[in-house]
Each structure stands twice: as C-alpha cells, then as structure tokens.
C-alpha cells in the first residue's frame, strides 16, 4: 500500500487517545479494528509491515459511515474522514477493494450515471407538472436518491420553489450522480467522470448557484468538487446551498411565510450537512420559524449520532447500518417528539425504516416536506403534517 506524505503525517500525529470511541460503528461492534483509533493504528502497522493488508482488515476498514464523529473529538484535530477516503482509495488500487456491493454500484453508475441502475430517462419523471427552466442562475440538483427513491423530497422542494416564484433550472436526464458514493468508498475515478459531466452541464446552462436537497450531494458539491476542479485545472465559482439554507433565507427575507406548526419535533443532524459542512443552525431556525416545539436529542449538532446509512455502510453492511440506526431512533423516541425531522433523503429513508422495525411511533420527515405543506399558496397536502 502506498502512503502519501499527508497520509503518513496524519498516522503519526494520532495520539491514540481514543476520544474517537464515539464512532457509531465501534459503539455497535466493540472491536477496535472498526474504531478510528484502530484504523489509524492498522495503517501504521501496514506501513511498518507489522500486519498484512488482508480482506478482513479491508472489510473492517469499510465499516465506517464517514460520519466524522471521530474528527469532532480528535485530540490532534486530524482530518480523519479525508484519511479514511485516502486509505480506501489506496485499497482499491491494491485490488482488495471496492467491496462486492460497492463494486456493483460502480458498474451500475458507469452504465446509467446513477448507483441505483435506473434508466437515465426515468430521472426526470418526478418533475412532471412542475414549472422549471432549462437555463437559470439557480440550478436545482435533486440527486439520485430524491430522483429515484425518495421522490417526495424532490417534489416538495420544487413545489415550494414554484409557490415562492423561484426561478430555477433543472437538468433532468442530464443531471448525473454527484459521485458521493464513489468518493466515500475510494472509487475516485468514477466520481471524477461524474464530476465532469455535471460541471459541463452547469457551465453550459449559465448556472451560478446550485441548490441541493440531499446532504450527501451538498457535501460533495461544496467540498469535493472544488478540490477536483482544482486538480483538473478547471475554474470553480459556483455558490452551493442546501435547501434548508435557502428556505431559511426565504423566510428571513419575508418571501416565504409558512403557517404555524403546532407539534413537538426533534431534529437529526445529517452528518454530511452538520459535521462535514457545519450547517447546524439554519434547519433549526426554520423549525423555530414555523413555531414547532424543538426538543433536542442528547447528541446533537457536532455530537450528533449518525443514522448509520452513509459511507457505503447501508449498501454493504446492512446489520451494522441497522444497529446504528436503531440506536439513533431510540434516542429520538426518548425526546417524546411526534416528528423526527432531517434534511437528507438517506437519513430519512433509513431512520423511517428503523422506526418501523423498532415499532417507534414517530413520523420521520424531511424539513422541506413540512415547510412546503405549510406554505400558504400551496396545493400539496402531506398526509402526516398537521397545521395549527
């Protein structure tokens, strides 16, 4: 395995203090080979040839949702998520990764430009009936999950945009996966290809601002894309917003005045929106603006506990994703909230599944679904949402 200087320096800077024990994977599995400290020490061992790069080690290395809880606690302030992704990319180069399901996602994405393997033409099915532009300064980037699996999120988002008269473009079948699943699992080549396609599309349409309702896409476009653009010698001058930020802005500017929402709610910080991009307060400000009673879970903001589905864990390690998700849904239940709000289709989908499995009576919804339902001019009527 090759160790670039940046990777090697991080390995040696680790104090082995184990503040990263908060790792949701370690909390579930209890063996250090799935803990951040253990992973750093494994890398050290590989570099010093004390241990061998073997399939079980690689598998344990991938039992990480890249949630970044470790980074938040790290005594030596290491960029651990970057470290995991760099190391995974090296494991791919060594031929011991990607893991079987991640490899399958790669094959599907290479064929269809989305990891679900859905036909490209189907990508824009959900937007029928909504008004959008071919070219505009604001581009709505729905992402694969909202386009194929959680269409209610995409629909509510553009419905809300229509209600407030926001002029936005949508690329339809010319929107491509952001590449997040591949960056997170060390398959950088696939992500670079997808980046190029999206980038060219946005440039062609004169886009200045990209709005995403998916925390994973938002993180990728905000953080990874500028780095990739720099590597490829491309100019990067896009503003990137998450829907929660845009909604908060619209409310503050008086362009959106939702009705009041008389419910007790709790908020789950998606890792990619919270820890990765530090968007903690905007969703909470929206929740307060609609008048809901927000009850925080014990672990919130920087200390928020992952839902369990990120980093390729849900696709490859269903049991682990389930164990982590169960932990989180039970924490949400403890608040006594009626609604569990999040800002990520992945979190929503997984936590809803966990609530059903555990028999937890809590409605799992995305923030934009609630706001859209409360928006004055709207026609959309969600089943679960209760207005004051």
């Amino acid at each position, binding site marked *: 395995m090759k160790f670039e200087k940046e990777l090697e320096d991080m390995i040696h*800077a*680790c104090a082995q*203090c*184990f503040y990263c*024990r908060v790792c949701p994977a370690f909390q579930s599995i209890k063996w250090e*080979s799935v803990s951040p400290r253990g992973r750093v*020490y*494994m890398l050290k061992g590989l570099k010093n040839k004390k241990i061998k790069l073997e399939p079980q080690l690689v598998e344990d290395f991938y039992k990480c949702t890249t949630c970044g809880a470790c980074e938040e606690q790290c*005594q*030596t302030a290491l960029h651990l998520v970057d470290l995991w992704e760099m190391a995974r990319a090296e494991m791919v180069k060594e031929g011991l990764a990607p893991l079987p399901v991640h490899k399958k996602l790669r094959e599907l994405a290479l064929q269809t430009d989305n990891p679900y393997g859905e036909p490209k033409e189907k990508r824009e099915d959900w937007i029928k009936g909504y008004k959008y532009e071919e070219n505009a300064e604001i581009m709505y980037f729905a992402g694969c999950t909202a386009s194929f699996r959680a269409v209610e999120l995409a629909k509510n988002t553009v419905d809300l945009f229509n209600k407030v008269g926001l002029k936005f473009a949508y690329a339809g079948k010319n929107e491509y996966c952001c590449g997040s699943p591949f960056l997170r699992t060390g398959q950088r080549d696939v992500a670079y290809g997808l980046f190029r396609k999206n980038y060219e599309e946005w440039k062609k349409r004169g886009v200045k601002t990209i709005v995403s309702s998916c925390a994973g896409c938002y993180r990728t476009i905000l953080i990874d894309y500028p780095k990739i653009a720099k590597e490829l010698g491309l100019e990067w001058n896009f503003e990137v917003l998450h829907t929660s930020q845009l909604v908060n802005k619209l409310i503050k500017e008086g362009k959106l005045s939702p009705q009041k929402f008389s419910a007790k709610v709790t908020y789950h910080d998606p890792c990619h929106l919270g820890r990765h991009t530090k968007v903690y307060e905007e969703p909470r400000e929206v929740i307060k603006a609609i008048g809901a009673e927000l009850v925080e879970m014990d672990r919130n903001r920087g200390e928020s506990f992952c839902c369990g589905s990120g980093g390729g864990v849900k696709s490859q390690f269903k049991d682990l994703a389930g164990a982590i998700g169960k932990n989180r849904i039970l924490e949400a239940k403890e608040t006594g909230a009626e609604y569990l709000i999040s800002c990520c289709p992945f979190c929503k989908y997984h936590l809803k599944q966990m609530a059903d499995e555990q028999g937890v009576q809590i409605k799992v919804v995305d923030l934009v679904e609630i706001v859209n339902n409360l928006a004055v001019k709207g026609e959309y009527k969600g089943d679960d949402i209760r207005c004051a």
Partner: protein
Amino acid sequence: MAEVKEIPKSDWAVHRYLYTRDISNAPVINLLLKQVDVIYQPRNEREVLEVLRIAKEEGATVVPRGAGTSGYGGVLPVKDIALLRLSRRKTIMIDFTRMDDFEIDEEKRLIECSPGAVWWEVEKKLNKKGLTLRVYPTSAPSSTVAGWIAQNGYGVGSLKYGGIAENVEKLRVADFSGVKEVEGKDLKYYIGMEGITGVITKAWVKVKEMEEMKYYGFHVSAKEANKIVFAGDHYAGLFLDSNYVKLKNEAFGTELPEKDTLMVATTEKLDGDESLGEEIWETRFYPMRVRRLGPGLVAAENVLPAESIPAYLNKLNKMIKKPHGSEIWYSKGRKGAVLSFIPSDERKFFSYAFTWFNSIRALKLAKSMRGVPYSTGFYLSSEAKLLFGGDYSELREYKRNVDPKGQLNPGKVFPVGVFPLAMGILQKVIP
C-alpha cells in the same frame, strides 16, 4: 459457568497487534514486549471469572485493559524472557469495552461502575441529576473508571479532592480464587496496582453536588501560582509554562499571550481573567494536541512538592534543548503533577530515541527534588520502592500471596527481570 465460546474473543492477528499497545511508543524497549495471544471481551463479572479460570488452567498470563490511554506500558504484555522465564506463556487480555454500565446512588453520592465505564459518560449522566465527579483524569472522554483506579494518579479536581485513590469508596475484584469486595485500608492492594493483584470488576466512587464554578486566568510565574492555587478552597488548578503556551498556540492556532499562565477553577471570587481561564479550561482534555508538531511526542510526568516545582521547571527548561513545554495539575497536599511534552518525529529513530532519554533525565531531576514518577506501569517499575514508600514490602508480599505464579499482568508495578535493572543503570549513567 458460561460456555467459553459465548464470551466474545479474538485471536485474529490484526486484533492481537491492535490490542498490544497504549499511547506510548518507547524506542528499543519495544523489543521486550510481545503480542497478546487472545483478547476476551467479557460482558459481566461471571465471564471475567471464566476467563480467569481459563488462564489458570492454561498457565497463561492475564493483562486487563481499559481504554489503553496510559503511557507507562501497564497494558503491554512483556516477553517471558525479559522476566527471566525460560518457557513462553500464553497471554490473555481482558478488554472491558463491553462492561461499561454504571449506576448513580444519588442519596449516598456514589457511582457504582463496571470497569469499562467511561468517565465522561458517567459525568454527563451525573450532570442530569445535578451531580458531578469530584475528580476525573484529563483523558476523561475515553479513559475508563477501573483503568484510572488501577493506574492511580491525579487529575481535574485533585486540588480539592486529592487523587483518585482518595475518592474510591469500595472495589470488587476478581482473582484466581474468586471475587471479593475491598474497602478502607485494603484498597491500597488494588489502587495503582495495574491488575497485578486482581482484576477490578466493580468500583464505587464518590461524587458531589454540582456547584457554580468560575474559571480564572492569571499570567504569573510558577512560584506565584503556588500562592494563588493553595490560598483558597479551589477545585482545580492548571499551570501552563510559557513554553507550553507557545506550543499550544502553534498546535491550536490560538493567540494566547506566550507567558506563564495559571488557570484556577473555583467557587470563590478571584481577581483573574475569566475569558482566559475559560479558554484554558475548555481545552483541558487536549494536552496532546502538540503531538501534531512532531508528528510524534515524548512525554515525562512526575509529581513534585509544589515548592520544588519552580526550580524543577527552571532546570528542566535548561536541560531540554528541543522545543518543549510543561503543564501542571495541582493536587491537595501541596503537590503538582508536572507533565512535560517534547514534540518529536517518531519516524526519525535516532533523534526520537535521543529525545526519549529526556524523560529519564526529567525523572532523575524530579527525584533529586523530592519528586516521584506519576506511575510505574512497565517502564518505571524500577521506581516502585520510591512510589510506594513504606508500603512497598507489604504490597509485594500481598502480590506473592494472591498470585504465586506471577500470572496477573507480569512485569508491571514491581521490578521483575532485566528491564528495571537496565532502567536503574540508565539513570545512573545518563547525564
């Protein structure tokens, strides 16, 4: 008895490698250490006893492990040959990760903890009930209750409440003959003994009501710091020498004035800088961030009488030529645990090894000024007599009685084999 197969265990080569470490990286001395053969993760006391039964049956040695956050080699298995034994014994590690539950007795102001309970998890639960720990280590976010008790030492709150030893009410311990509960004067057979006399399976620790605490910062010398710290009934005192503040600024990206700085946590009103005090208090769990500057770190930790500390720092600063710094947590009885850091790139073997000698030189200096090492573990077992003073012979005799075959964490606390002799010689020859 539980079936052996029911207890989570692993002998996978990667786990054996991962569990054979603490936060230290001692050059050359590593040659005396070996890997564990199997790691057990018991879930309750019954399973701990079962692991001990297996160890007895197999003639194996047993190394208990909390979070592995100490740096004295207390959880590192020592080669039998280094202990002057010709036959190789199997080494079993008991990892307490799965025994991390605890209960709070609000009335008695006590916590009843399983060995793997993590200090800061306990603190968070206590706070919800209006209670708080009296003392906790600066590694509280990860270190375990039994781990710190087995290591012994001082930490946050020691200025008012003393070391952890003074805050343990009762222990439950397991050895090859079963389980017993110890309290009062018998606690000394287990606190700071690193599992060589028995394995802690439960600990009762004193806690207190939460109080409104203020944090004050002062730019004063170590001598002046002594006057402020011991003048009132303060909860905690932390001194950072100017060298450490410089390293801290570099590692944290902060701009603290690079002067000797004292932080006092207290319920009393003091004439200090509250924002400075709060800033230092908030980073109390991050002393090792300076490791980034190596990348790597050599540390030395000694406990000195408060009156000796100014002169100790003065001499230490002249002695160590590389960038370094020290922080001091004060303790009841006019003492201070001086922790000195020297960032050093551990990839540069000779330079790192040479830097490591500084920790031995710091110990030698501390001893010349009525100081003692913070702990013994494996690396400093040569210092046990100094650390335990008048109790040394009694404790050693107790160890012989309870573990006649030397299976419980051999090579720790008391000097056994070649290494303590080498350390003794090294201290004599090192300038």
